[in-house]
């Protein structure tokens, strides 16, 4: 009798728990839709708790699969070697050209007394997981906010831009790749200097949209970040223009997504912001208005005196 009662009570409690959990998940989904950043932070915290701990289980399988695919490539080692040698010869020619250009560049810079922007700092991380879903293109890095990674920073491999940091936890950060459908990057097409938007569409060659004159964008032109919007530093290589058979303009990504393992997160030091219009224009003009007329006649400066005195 008592047994039956407890089992009845347990069934009622269980029903309550089931209902509550279902409601909670539904509420979480609604919340994700309404207040996405907060829920994404919760997601990153959850992932930060679990995924690095699972790494020891993942590592052997990953290594094994890589060894197998490496072994496959050994089969064509002779061919590879030949190709590499030819490439090396071509590259040596380019290296010579680059060195000469660098020297002339340095000379010209010295002549012009150019101030270069401070070089970028970076932190290197290893990709621990990919997104695990065919609908989003992203990966998890093993560096996080403790290493100075912040949302919006650019991630590059040795060759080109990989994506953008979106979601940071203490020890992990998520990189949304350029191929993701939500990725849109302002770019400049070299050498014409046209501006455009690079729009990911789940392929390794994202669309180049909104260029000023699409007919003037030719295959082989280089695509670099423009730095517009202040998210990415300018002049990071993205890839090369290609045209698909249907005539769309696309950019073939330079980054090596096949063998993505180590990724640099660029920590661009924030540029000095110019706030306001400066003190030359504005109230200070109105203030010294009652000027003696003879001074004006003498041809002295009409503008207000420089606010901080002379530099010299």
């Amino acid at each position, binding site marked *: 009798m008592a047994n039956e009662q407890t089992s009845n009570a347990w069934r009622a409690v269980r029903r309550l728990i089931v209902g509550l959990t279902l409601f909670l*998940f539904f509420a979480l989904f609604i919340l994700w839709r309404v207040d996405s950043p907060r829920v994404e932070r919760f*997601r990153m915290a959850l992932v930060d708790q679990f995924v690095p701990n699972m790494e020891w289980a993942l590592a052997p399988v990953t290594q094994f699969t890589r060894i197998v695919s490496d072994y496959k490539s050994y089969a064509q080692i002779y061919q590879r070697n030949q190709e590499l040698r030819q490439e090396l010869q071509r590259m040596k020619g380019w290296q010579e050209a680059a060195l000469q250009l660098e020297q002339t560049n340095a000379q010209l810079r010295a002549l012009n007394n150019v101030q270069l922007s401070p070089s970028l700092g970076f932190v290197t991380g290893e990709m621990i997981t990919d997104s695990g879903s065919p609908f989003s293109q992203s990966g998890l890095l093993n560096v996080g906010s403790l290493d100075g990674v912040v949302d919006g920073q650019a991630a590059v491999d040795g060759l080109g831009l990989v994506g953008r940091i979106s979601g940071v936890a203490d020890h992990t950060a998520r990189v949304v790749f350029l191929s993701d459908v939500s990725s849109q990057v302002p770019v400049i097409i070299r050498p014409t200097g046209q501006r455009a938007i690079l729009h990911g569409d789940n392929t390794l060659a994202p669309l180049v949209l909104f260029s000023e004159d699409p007919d003037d964008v030719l295959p082989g032109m280089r695509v670099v970040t423009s730095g517009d919007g202040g998210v990415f530093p300018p002049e990071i290589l993205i890839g090369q223009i290609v045209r698909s058979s249907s005539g769309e303009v696309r950019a073939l990504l330079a980054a090596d997504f096949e063998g993505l393992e180590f990724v640099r997160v660029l920590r661009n030091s924030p540029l000095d912001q110019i706030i306001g219009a400066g003190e030359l224009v504005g109230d200070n003009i109105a203030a010294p208005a009652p000027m003696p007329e003879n001074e004006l006649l003498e041809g002295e400066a009409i503008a207000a005196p420089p606010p901080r005195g002379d530099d010299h």
Partner: protein
Amino acid sequence: MNVSLKIWAFRAVYLILGLLSIAYPLLPLQFTPVRIPTPDLLFALTLAWVVRQPASAPFLLVAALAILADAALMRPIGLWALLLLVASETVRLSYRTIQERGLWLEFSLVAGLLVIMVVLQNIMLWISFSQTLEVERLLQFVMLTLLIYPVMVLFLHYIIRVRKPDHSNRPDRLGKIR
């Protein structure tokens, strides 16, 4: 005492297998986008397990794994977990019937549930103005997951030894009949 110990051991095994099936699609092997979708191992594992031994895959454990999978696999958080829980509870409510009617009924029920889940997921995404998923990819996903399901059943039966209880020795409505 012995029986409850066995149940707890099976729960631990279910937890480990569930974590592995979440981790498997995360393996950092390929970052290129062109690829076929990975089948939902957690779905196959959970439904196959609940049909056979509902006691050792308790509701809260399924819920925890489902929400973790949603978080780790970058899905809209909570949605697929909700659908998976509803599906597993549907199976749990009628697990006796499914056990008695055999594998064909089980497979067709699971297939029906999966299709309904996928359709409901896209409808929910559409209603909430989120990005809906491509139909072609979803079809591939359903096919692959259904292909994995029998493999999962065999794996559970022969290797993990999660089996249906023996029916010949069970009391029916009139009591035990020898």
